[in-house]
């Protein structure tokens, strides 16, 4: 199966990292696709939670926003947003939170706030939304993001959410008891933090990806695991289910909902 895009493999690889017992705090975009792909393939009982308050949702098409009607219609229950953040996220009930970034550093620290100075930004990005507390309160964090030197930077301009700080025991030192970023899945590779330094280390390259290609897309000196694997390509079923999901979604978003 070679007829797939890098983003498709990124999504599929992320879905494989999820299990039936997970309770996921889902963001829009690749995480939403990955979580629903997992639900539609190997993890039918996975619990998906969107920050709009929808718990145990099973959308037939991917939502455009975090609060599409589809999410509420198919949820076990829908709670107010303050409750979502207090009882469900802060309450420590989420096993995996997904985050993405405009800028990411080697320790999984994330910026989605500004490029440049905060008070005179070059680019004003959307900001943190749920991310600062997702990063702190979920059992662990998976990051999905396409590699580019603009995004994978030596130093981020703003700490929107904390990953492993300067590495090592930085999380424990500021009182965080959760694991933080444990997995980084990109369009080119799979990365995991080094057990001691917490620096993201490449553990698997997607089929056909070279170390030269990697170096050109990352703004720091990449560390590789001793034994770098090759990411298994998508299976026919994974790809078919993902593409069906995207096709249904595209159709739904192009026309008025009631038409």
């Amino acid at each position: 199966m070679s007829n797939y895009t890098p983003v498709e493999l990124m999504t599929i690889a992320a879905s494989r990292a999820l299990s039936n017992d997970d309770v996921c705090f889902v963001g829009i975009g690749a995480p939403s696709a990955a979580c629903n792909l997992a639900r539609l393939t190997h993890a039918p009982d996975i619990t998906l939670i969107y920050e709009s308050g929808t718990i145990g949702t099973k959308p037939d098409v991917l939502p455009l926003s975090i609060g599409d009607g589809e999410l509420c219609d198919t949820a076990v229950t829908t709670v107010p947003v303050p409750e979502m953040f207090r009882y469900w996220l802060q309450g420590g009930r989420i096993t995996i939170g997904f985050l993405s970034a405009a800028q990411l550093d080697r320790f999984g620290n994330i910026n989605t706030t500004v490029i440049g100075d905060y008070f005179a930004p070059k680019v004003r990005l959307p900001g943190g939304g749920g991310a600062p507390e997702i990063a702190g309160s979920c059992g662990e964090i998976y990051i999905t993001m396409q590699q580019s030197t603009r995004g994978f930077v030596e130093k981020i301009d703003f700490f929107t959410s904390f990953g492993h700080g300067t590495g090592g025991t930085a999380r424990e030192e500021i009182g965080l008891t959760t694991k933080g970023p444990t997995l980084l899945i990109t369009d080119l590779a799979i990365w995991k933090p080094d057990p001691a330094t917490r620096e993201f280390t490449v553990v698997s390259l997607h089929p056909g990806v070279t170390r030269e290609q990697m170096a050109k897309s990352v703004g720091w000196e990449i560390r590789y695991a001793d034994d770098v694997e090759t990411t298994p390509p998508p299976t026919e079923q994974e790809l078919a289910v993902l593409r069906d999901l995207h096709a249904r979604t595209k159709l739904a978003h192009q026309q008025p909902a009631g038409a």
Partner: protein
Amino acid sequence: MAKFMPLRDAIAEFLHDGDEVAFEGFTHLIPHAAAHEAIRQGRRNLTLVRLTPDIIYDQMIGMGCASRIVFSYAGNPGVGLLHRLRDAVENAWPNPIEICEHSHAALANAYEAGASGLHCAIFRGYKGADLPKVNKDIKTVICPFSGEELAAVRAVRPDVSIIHAQKADRDGNVLVEGIVGVQKEAVLAAKHAVVTVEEVVDDLDVHPNACILPGWTVSAICEVPGAAHPSYAHGYYGRDNSFYLEWDRISADRELFTAWMKDNVLDETPKVFVSRVAALRSGT
């Protein structure tokens, strides 16, 4: 006690220049018709509070209504950035805008504290994040039992909160159903509340624990069918996702934006909303 009145009169009576106002609705039930009315009436120097500024505040900011914004996620959900908000923050067009930025958890807690009559909320948050360095409304409190350092945020207590809801009964009791966001908290935190509804009915006909705002907690109720467009009203019409995509194009250009706002807001009335959702109504 809720007064039933036209939207135009409600905005004229309850929303004043310089007010702190929350137009709430978390992706669902966003009170667009009320925002358009505020734009038409030329409100200025508002402090706009909202978790997700979204298209509604992109329009108000672009039209010069706001001098300050309190928010936690300034994007066009699932589409991209908010061009008018960016233009205000990056280029002071049409006027400079002060920002007070939070996370969702912080701002949701701040509304909850406002509804609870407190001046602050505490929660576990912002650990290792930079926002506390740039927002003086974020402080810390030490838990007297565990010794843990918790984030403390200033409560949100708007002059006015404005929401859209499905129904009101003739006593002014309001039903909000589906994704209820922070609307109840926004209304209870505010001095006044203006509510647009899809319809006024004899009986709300709901189960005992539905999200209801009793009539005596609301200042004004305005029947404006379709008032959430391009957002949606659970049980009435779906989200106009294609308009959210289209807004990216309209809002990217100052002139295109200005022309669109003239044609679709300044020269219109609340009555137009019902036609905007006609094609979005489904069998549900």
